């Protein structure tokens, strides 16, 4: 009975909160830059003798760091391609998490799905000798299929036994990591004449072609984002996914097969994580190593949260994180600000987004309901 107008499309307040969160995170980040800069800290030591030094140095440190961050993220075409290549797997894996959110599931398993996808795609990529294009298609399909199965297991377990997907996906993450470590001790995965836990690099024929300085996987990521949007908003399956996510009982009563939706959703979510893995391993000549997935599968959760589990939001959040990652490297290389700062920024942004009341209080914004409702929904079982 409150004044909730309850309109489906209310992106403006959400966007405001998000932008405000990013700004706030940058402000906190600036404080961290100041206290982690040796010169500023020294100047603080004699603050009462030469107070001006402190502010000049602090200003310089903040300006230099953020400038390097911005330049590294988008200051040149090279920087843009770096940002895009880093964003692409985040977008794909993030879409997987978002899709599961929309169907009422909290998919913590993107990391495990990515790893299995990387194993499959990588194995085809470095083991077989296939003609160009065909090799890429086969390797990519294998990666996507492997990850889809990995995600599908969690979906099937939920559908058939009611096992909570948070538990099963976390456990499947462990299994995937162990599987990867195990395989990397096997001859079939190690390089010839080496005992190191590292595979051959994927063959040239299996790589994404490069266009405009970035690999074509980036374009695939954008295409897939559009496809996921279509799936959710325009297709009957997406209608079922959203209905199950918003109210599984009503969906069941309306004749939808909830177990089928759970299984299919996790299959597709896994496939999306698999696509991220494919970009990771077939984007450049990379080999399969213990850390091939980095933290993409976990960052994907943050990306999905920040993107409010919508395809467009996920793309934007993925681009932002990609920019922070590639800018962060230049920032560390050029100015020496630790790359950890970008991780702190990422964490802060999401923290602020998750606590919209805090952001509004700090920035004195009016409560227009741009809350984290999508997220809260995702939490339900």
């Amino acid at each position, binding site marked *: *009975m*409150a*004044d*909730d*107008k*309850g*309109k*489906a*499309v209310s992106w403006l307040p959400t966007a405001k909160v998000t932008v405000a969160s990013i700004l706030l995170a940058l402000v906190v980040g600036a404080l961290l830059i100041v206290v982690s800069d040796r010169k500023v800290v020294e100047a603080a030591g004699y603050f009462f003798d030469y107070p001006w030094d402190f502010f000049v140095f602090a200003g310089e440190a903040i300006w230099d760091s953020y400038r390097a961050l911005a330049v590294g993220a988008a200051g040149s075409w090279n920087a843009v391609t770096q940002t895009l290549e880093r964003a692409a797997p985040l977008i794909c894996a993030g879409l997987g998490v978002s899709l599961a959110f929309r169907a009422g599931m909290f998919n913590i398993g993107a990391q495990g799905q990515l790893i299995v996808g990387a194993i499959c795609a990588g194995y085809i990529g470095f083991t077989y000798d296939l003609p160009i294009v065909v090799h890429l298609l086969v390797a990519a399909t294998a990666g996507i299929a492997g990850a889809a199965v990995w995600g599908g297991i969690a979906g099937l377990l939920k559908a058939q036994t009611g096992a909570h997907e948070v538990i099963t996906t976390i456990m499947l993450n462990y299994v995937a990591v162990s599987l990867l470590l195990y395989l990397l001790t096997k001859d079939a995965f190690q390089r010839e004449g080496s005992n190191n836990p590292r595979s051959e690099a994927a063959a040239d024929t299996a790589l994404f072609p490069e266009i405009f300085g970035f690999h074509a996987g980036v374009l695939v990521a954008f295409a897939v984002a559009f496809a996921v949007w*279509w799936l959710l908003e*325009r*297709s*009957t*399956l997406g*209608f079922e996914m*959203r*209905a199950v996510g*918003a*109210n599984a*009982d*009503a*969906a*069941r*009563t*309306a*004749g*939808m*097969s909830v177990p089928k939706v759970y299984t299919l959703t996790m299959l597709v979510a896994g496939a999306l994580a698999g696509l991220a893995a494919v970009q990771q391993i077939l984007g450049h000549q990379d080999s399969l190593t213990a850390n091939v997935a980095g933290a993409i599968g976990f960052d994907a959760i943050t990306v999905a949260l920040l993107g409010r589990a919508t395809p467009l939001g996920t793309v934007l959040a993925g681009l932002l994180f990609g920019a922070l990652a590639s800018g962060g490297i230049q920032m560390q290389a050029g100015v020496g600000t630790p790359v950890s700062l970008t991780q702190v920024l990422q964490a802060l942004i999401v923290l602020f987004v998750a606590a919209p009341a805090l952001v509004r209080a700090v920035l004195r914004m009016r409560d227009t309901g741009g809350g984290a409702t999508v997220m809260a*929904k995702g939490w339900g079982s």
Partner: protein
Amino acid sequence: MELEIRGLTKRFGSFVANDDISLTIEPGEIHCLLGENGAGKSTLMNMLYGLLDPTSGEILLDGEPVHFTTPGDAINAGIGMVHQHFMLVPVFTVAENVMLGREQTRGLGMLDRGKAAELVRELSARYGLDVDPEAMVEDLPVGVQQRVEIIKALANEAQVLILDEPTAVLTPQEIDELMEIMRSLKEQGTSIVFITHKLREVKAIGDRITVIRRGKVVGTTAPGASEPELAEMMVGRAVKLQVEKPEPTVGEPVLDVRNMTVIDARGHTVVDDISFQARAGEVLGIAGVQGNGQTELIKSLMGLVKPDAGQILIDGKDVSKQGPRETLEQGIGYIPEDRSHDGYVGGFTVRENLVLDLYKHDEFSNGLALRLDAIADNARERIEEFDIRTEDMDSLVSSLSGGNQQKVVLAREFSRPLKLLIASQPTRGVDVGSIEFIHKRIIGERDRGTAVVIVSTELDEIYALSDRIAVMYAGRIVGTVTPDTPREEIGLMMAGASTEQEGSHRG
């Protein structure tokens, strides 16, 4: 204690939930607060109980202004509240629940259960509540649980007791018992604010009746006012309380349930060897107190629960092994008892909810993609036809009033040709105006030759709609009677007392 409310106003943003409300609760009176769902009764009570902060206005106790910021303040001032949803810990005993929040300890921090039990016994005896302090709350019937809530309030020395829709969960017998208790409380000086939307009850128990509509006090009357008068005050226009219903033209049986049994997950037999028929062109009402197997019966008819024995025949074909999709496709319309739980997706728009079980039809999809235009056209038509009060078709259903939400469900289920309509609690939590509309549509559907099964715990509704009445008790149909059977008799059947009288009124 005299409780006075002076010019109390509560705004949520631009929405005025309570607008300049003033009323006085005299010591030892039963003051009924009558209004439709969403009229602002609960907002008012929540302000009295310290759960909401008034935008303006004041509350006075014996002429002294008071300000409550928490329920604790209200309790200390002598105000007690029994919520519609009980605030009891099911695995605690009655005494422990009463003790909760005001734990009495002996030395060394030992809880003094004995003292609490003593208090429960004493209050129970004084007001004729008949509650065993040692009983586990989860084992008690709903009516007794409610009395535990009352004891809790009394243990806190409440002088004004607020009862929020207390009769919604009770059987007719339990309602009578509650009214006895209310009278006994009143005689001993406790004032009672009785919130309800049921006209019969206010007339039976109220000393004074204040009617609230759209956040404003419409007027205060004596219980002598007639039901149509009260209804008109409540709704703002003249309301037909009786559905106009021509004689039914009964046809062949559409639904034939034979010896059906459902055993729930805990191994209890919740539907016990039930057989009945629903025939084309008639309304079969299933009366009974909530929790006597109606929910499971209906869910198994819809394929949501698989029966453990017996057959469900629709047009002679056994559907007991089918899932809900097949059942719906056969021309069964379904209005579930808990619409927000099963009937619609609150986070979906009106437009989407109107095709929630139709989206796969050729009209609305090509198998893969939705036909958005057709879905929008459908929404426009249904909103118009069923007079769904919504800003537009893209409003979320969760933002509509209960009556309009139910109309969405109804509109969807009526938008395809039906053989059988199963409606469970079709007007629960729905305003009087919408009840009238929904009842009319259901009878209209009957007259079109559809077999209709209505499940309701409200006897008024059963009487208003049914051509035959089956009464359920403990998972069985204890009898099937005609609507001219006296109320008391059906009440007794609902309590499981009588099966031998069924012969005289068999329909």
